[in-house]
């Protein structure tokens, strides 16, 4: 455990030093993966499929907020489908619009989940999304997750429809349309997946909210178990048992990845170096604010030299002397810092006086 903690601390300081570059490069890589997966799975338009297009778009999304990546991914997908058949692209656009108008505009910060699920399905580990969302978000995240699942199955159907004979007559167009809608709504696997993903989010969320040690790790385990049992049930029921092996392996990998993410998340969340500019009437200030908080793991024992001295302090102050931050006070930490500093100094002085 100790080596992991040291590794975490090292990574943290590394991240703190080069935050701007690491963020940009990571965003670029993620965007590149997303566009490559879109291109390999439904890359019908050879113009959009060129590597230079993917490169330019990835570069663009490396320097812009993550919402732009979601938008670009949607546009590229629509472009590919449009090349294949106009009516199919109209269906995709309409379903996307309905999703946005009725559901996604209420959870704007979780838009990436909609893109992540189809992309991760391609890598066989979509289960990581409900696990991570259950761990870090609210049950409201069921909405974008469900939309992502619907999109994944929609593209599966479109791929099938692409093999059909497509002509431009009105009758064929309507037939294609009814085919897509029929297969989307009669797809039991789609509805089972949505139900199971929602269950995973709920189980993970409620377990991690419980007040016992390692609640977060146990929540991941419970979510993983829910996932395996749920998909086992649905795969057997729908008789698609050839997927079971892949599903179990994917779930286990997702669970492990979630634990890793959760382990580093606490370290990386509060480490961002901030650059701010402001002015008063005398100066311009260009401030680089480096966070000072040291989040120690609860397992680390801290030796107290003078128990008597600490025993008189209130509990929250005691934590500060030992340089450990309780999770609920992390937010308030900065604000309290000054007051505490003064208090602590006063306390020291008065203590010395006593000893004399």
């Amino acid at each position, binding site marked *: 455990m100790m080596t992991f903690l040291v590794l975490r601390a090292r990574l943290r300081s590394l991240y703190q030093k080069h935050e701007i570059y690491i963020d940009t490069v990571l965003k670029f890589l993620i965007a590149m993966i997303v566009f490559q997966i879109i291109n390999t799975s439904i890359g019908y338009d050879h113009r959009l499929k060129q590597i230079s297009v993917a490169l330019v778009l990835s570069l663009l999304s490396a320097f812009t907020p993550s919402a732009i990546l979601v938008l670009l991914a949607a546009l590229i997908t629509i472009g590919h489908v449009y090349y294949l058949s106009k009516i199919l692209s109209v269906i995709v656009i*309409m379903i996307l*619009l*309905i999703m*946005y*108008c*009725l559901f996604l*505009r*209420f959870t704007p910060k979780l838009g990436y989940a909609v893109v992540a699920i189809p992309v991760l399905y391609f890598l066989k580990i979509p289960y990581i999304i409900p696990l991570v969302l259950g761990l870090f978000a609210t049950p409201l995240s069921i909405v974008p997750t469900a939309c992502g699942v619907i999109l994944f199955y929609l593209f599966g159907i479109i791929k099938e429809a692409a093999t059909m004979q497509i002509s431009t007559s009105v009758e064929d167009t*309507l037939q294609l*349309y*009814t085919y897509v*809608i029929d297969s989307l709504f009669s797809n039991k696997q789609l509805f089972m997946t949505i139900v199971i993903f929602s269950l995973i989010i709920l189980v993970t969320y409620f377990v991690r909210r419980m007040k016992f040690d390692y609640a977060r790790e146990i929540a991941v385990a419970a979510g993983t178990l829910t996932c395996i049992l749920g998909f086992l049930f649905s795969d057997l029921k729908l008789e698609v048992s050839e997927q079971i092996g892949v599903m179990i392996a994917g779930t286990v990998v997702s669970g492990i990845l979630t634990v890793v993410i959760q382990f580093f998340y606490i370290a990386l969340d509060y480490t961002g170096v*901030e650059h*701010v*500019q*402001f002015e*008063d009437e005398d*100066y311009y*200030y260009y*401030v680089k*604010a480096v966070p000072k908080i040291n989040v120690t793991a609860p397992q680390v024992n801290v030796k107290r030299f003078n128990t008597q001295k600490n025993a008189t302090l209130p509990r929250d102050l005691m934590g500060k002397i030992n340089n450990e931050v309780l999770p609920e006070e992390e937010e308030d930490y*900065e*604000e309290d810092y*000054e007051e505490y500093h003064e208090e602590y100094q006063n306390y020291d002085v008065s203590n010395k006086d006593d000893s004399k």
Partner: protein
Amino acid sequence: MLNNKKIRIMTKLALYEQKEGKEDIKMSKYYKTDYVRLQVLKTVVSVTMGYILILLMIGMYRAEYIISKLVTFDFVRIGQYVLGLYIMIMAVFVTGSIIGYSLKYDYSRKNLSKYYKSLKKLSSFYREEKAKG
């Protein structure tokens, strides 16, 4: 002379203003009722659009049937059905968004109160400076 305490407060304020406080400060320009009402209005517009799109999709799906029965349709009845469903969906979304956005507003107020506290501290610095001359 640089005043370190003042710089610290100003940095804190600037950080809040540029990051998570951006939306809070925008929201603070509205009264709660106005804010919620605006959001509900936006919701109504978008839900209406979504509903029309869904109707359009259903219409396309049933196009053949609709065209063949166009003459014998009881349009009043269908209209009532469509309108009733619309009102039901709208009621759900409007109630949801009233609750959701009220909670969001209250939450942003809580954050803002911290911000105002720091602002007050800053203004007290200025008062002290003025008193010194």
